């Protein structure tokens, strides 16, 4: 079992090196080989799923002594929430490689960067202490730098530098928080214990808790991103290649929310209670702002990027409300948003490869030439809007229900976000697919081929499955959420 958890991180690194070492003249091997190699981590997920009771809270799997003089260990562990996110990551990497176009599938640099990204994101979700969390959090910048920089769009230089600097700026706050926590735990216990077990028993004063909460949460919120720290996201999405966008929306945005759930709230609960209203307000502003800005976008990829800001606002609202139901909804919404927005970005990528434009006004009446594509797009849009029976509904409903008792006004306003989502998604669908074929070029556009249908189909099945049977993934997050909820509840109890 120990080796298995390691291999979620090590296997993609080995895969990436393996791909990188294949000589260039065997370029036709790259894609099939990468697909095969990325099936292995997913297979591992399945194996772990079948053989292990994963409906648990976080437990340590293995330790690795890093700096013995300071008593710092690197720890990896596993929990239900981590497992779900790791599986989502492995699935999205596999599907994004499946959906690659000819240009990218022949570039081994691209494929091995994707694998490295997979390794570092898995590392964040499996990290069992603050140092390894930080290491992987920052290490994922390296593959992302090359993915966006080399294979990005026209304006990629600006977008990449902006993305990197925003993230690094956030991460220095996390580093400062890590160092502060380490020094505090050194003062109380005599070594720099930064693992989650000893942090939960670390006694800190109320003001220290507030400072630490702010340090960590600020860093993570940039990654979520929350309004007004979101401006890197639309640029990054528009310039990133399709596979990069899928992973960026699918899993990288979850890294921030995951960090808040795993670190900020359970360990610095007093700070959370102090600032939860602020975060909730910013989230609701983000929900409405993202949705309104999405309505007026002329670029379909940018529209989905802004819709991500709105959806992640829901996640943050659920987290900041601090109720059992809303926290659970937030975790489920994280998974759902990963699935839905991953699918949307993939679909937009397919369209872009055919027409080399993403302007909504360049399309119109596409339903006639691409009926399958239109059907899949509509289905995914419904999931994104939150139509009952599909996955988006579950998370948003739980979040709104759960956060209403804490923030009546804010969650009432947030409910309008769902209506606005219907406006921007359906209006965009209408302009692109309904009506007459307005552009000559769109007449002969080919519909999705079998390769593309195969790469998007698993996500569609998941949307329906989670929508109809949400208690399946709920059962995996119950334990994680109860730990977080209890820490909030206890702190409120003490302060009262």
């Amino acid at each position, binding site marked *: 079992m120990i080796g298995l958890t390691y291999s979620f991180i090590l296997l993609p690194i080995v895969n990436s090196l393996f791909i990188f070492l294949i000589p260039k003249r065997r370029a036709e091997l790259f894609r099939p080989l990468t697909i095969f190699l990325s099936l292995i981590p997913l297979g591992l997920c399945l194996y772990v799923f079948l053989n292990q009771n994963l409906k648990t809270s976080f437990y340590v799997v293995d330790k690795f*002594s890093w700096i013995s003089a300071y008593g710092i260990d690197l720890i990896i562990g596993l929990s239900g929430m981590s497992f779900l996110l790791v599986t989502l990551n492995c699935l999205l990497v596999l599907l994004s490689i499946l959906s690659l176009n000819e240009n990218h599938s022949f570039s081994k640099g691209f494929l091995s960067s994707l694998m490295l990204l997979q390794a570092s994101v898995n590392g964040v979700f499996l990290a069992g202490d603050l140092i390894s969390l930080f*290491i992987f959090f*920052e290490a994922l910048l390296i593959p992302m*730098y090359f993915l966006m*920089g080399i294979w990005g769009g026209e304006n990629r230089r600006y977008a990449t*530098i902006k993305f990197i600097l925003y993230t690094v700026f956030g991460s220095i706050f996390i580093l400062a928080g890590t*160092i502060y926590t380490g020094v505090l735990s050194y003062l109380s216990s005599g070594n720099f214990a930064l693992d989650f077990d000893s942090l939960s028993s670390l006694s800190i004063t109320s003001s220290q808790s507030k400072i630490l909460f702010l340090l960590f949460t600020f860093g993570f919120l940039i990654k979520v991103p929350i309004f007004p720290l979101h401006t890197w996201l639309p640029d990054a999405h528009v310039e990133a290649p399709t596979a990069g966008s899928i992973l960026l929306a699918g899993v990288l945005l979850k890294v921030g929310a995951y960090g808040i759930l795993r670190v900020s709230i359970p360990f610095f609960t007093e700070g959370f209670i102090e600032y939860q209203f602020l975060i909730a307000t910013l989230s609701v502003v983000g929900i409405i702002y993202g949705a309104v800005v999405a309505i007026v976008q002329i670029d379909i990829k940018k529209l989905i990027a802004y819709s991500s800001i709105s959806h992640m606002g829901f996640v943050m609202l659920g987290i900041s409300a601090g109720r059992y139901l809303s926290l659970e909804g937030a975790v489920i919404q994280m998974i759902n948003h990963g699935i839905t927005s991953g699918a949307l970005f993939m679909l937009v990528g397919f369209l872009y490869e055919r027409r080399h434009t993403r302007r909504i006004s360049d399309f119109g009446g596409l339903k006639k030439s691409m009926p399958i594509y239109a059907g899949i797009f509509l289905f995914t849009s419904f999931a994104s809007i939150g139509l009952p029976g599909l996955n988006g509904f579950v998370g948003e409903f739980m979040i709104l229900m759960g956060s209403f008792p804490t923030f009546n006004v804010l969650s009432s306003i947030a409910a309008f976000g769902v209506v606005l989502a219907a406006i921007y998604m359906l209006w965009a669908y209408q302009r692109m697919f309904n009506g007459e074929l307005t552009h000559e070029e769109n007449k002969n556009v080919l519909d999705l081929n079998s390769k593309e249908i195969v790469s998007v189909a698993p996500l569609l099945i998941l949307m329906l499955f989670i929508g109809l049977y949400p208690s399946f993934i709920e059962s995996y997050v119950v334990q994680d959420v109860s730990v977080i909820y209890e820490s909030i509840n206890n702190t409120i109890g003490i302060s009262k």
Partner: protein
Amino acid sequence: MSQIAEAIGFNLIVISPTVTLVITVLILLFFTISVETSLTVKKWITFLGILVTVFCVFLKFGLFLQNGISSYFTQKILLDEFSLFGNVLIAMILFLNFLPIWDTSSKLNEKTSEAIILILMSASGFFLMVDAENLIMLFIGLEIGSISLYALAGLNRSDKLSNEASLKYFLLGSLASCVLIYGVALVYVSYSVMSLYDFALALAYTGPDIVPLTTFVGVLFIFVGLLFKIAAAPFQSWAPDVYQGSPTGYVGYMASIAKVASFIVISRMCMVSIPFILEDFQTFFFVVILLSVLIGSFFASVQSDLKRLIAYSGVVQSGFILSGITSGVNGTSASMFYLFAYILQLIGVFTIFSIISGKLSSNFEMDNIKGLIKNNRFLGISFCVFMFGLAGIPLTSGFVSKFILLTNLWAYEKYFLVSILLLSTVVGFYFYLRPIWIATIEKVDEPVETLLIKKSEYLLIGSLASLTILFGLLPDTLINISRWVVQNYL
């Protein structure tokens, strides 16, 4: 004879690295002026001399195990953990730089042996400097080392920039030496002592309250002279010009060796000589660190010449190392780790530069590394590793050194300093990632010219890059060594 030798603490082992280098120089000199010898023979003589020097450093470890901290030659030469660490670092720099140094010198035709002699002499001087217990000895070591470096910077006489670099380095460097020797004189005026240990005793004897003003000024001047050598702001103005003008193959050696020796001496001064009055210099050091970080970050962001960029980034790195050294024991140990990791990256970067641009050229525009990853994949990846290391991205030694340094500073409650240093890493990401962008990402219009490099260069750069990653993944050994250096002062 033996009684006299015992009385003055005569011991050849303790100065054996210096002696070996001087003997090598004399042999080279003999072959240059009397017998016609081929370059290959001279290369082997030099290499053998460096190997014996490395061996002599091991001998000093044996002596240390036997005698512990001890002084020799009537309190002129000191053998302690700092001097051993410094010896190891200098021998390592000499060994690792042998390839670029030799390749550069062999391009100088008639002046090959001249250049090698200068380099070996400067190393012998810096060996003396890190070993010095006596302040005069320190000055002599520094001067032997520096004067050779001034000449080295201007060795490419046909190049205007090289001449300018040499002259600038010489004028400013000798001014700094003047300041340093004046400081030594003032310290002597106050207490009539020259030895670092005696100075500490004298200070302890009088107590910190009635220390004469001349002592403060003297110590301040000594620090200024040393800070000049490590290019900390506001004494950094020579560094960019000298790095830019000097023959590229020599810059890695010049930059690293002067820094190592001066940092070792500064940390020994702070630990041994003036711990009682170190508090009074905190403001001074704070200003120096702040200026180094600000000026270095700002100017590094706007450079178009890569050697100048590395020079200004070196100013920032000096600020980092200095902040640990002046904070206390644990900070010093973190700084020693930082120094070690930084030197490896610095040598790696300059070796790559000298391979790309040709050894003697002075200018090194950003465009020179355009398409590096296409021309030579190995060099491209190693360059990225070194740059990531300098920026401090996790999984490289740069991250570990920044992390432990900042942790120690936080433990000393220097919150403001930590926040400044953290912010400077964000700026650092900007200017370190720019060369990576140009080397790996920027589209190249010209057809790909494969850059062929020698096997020995593969080995050198490969081992430096893998050490950079290794110390990031498994830093434990090096951290224990850096803690061993300061163990007596804990």
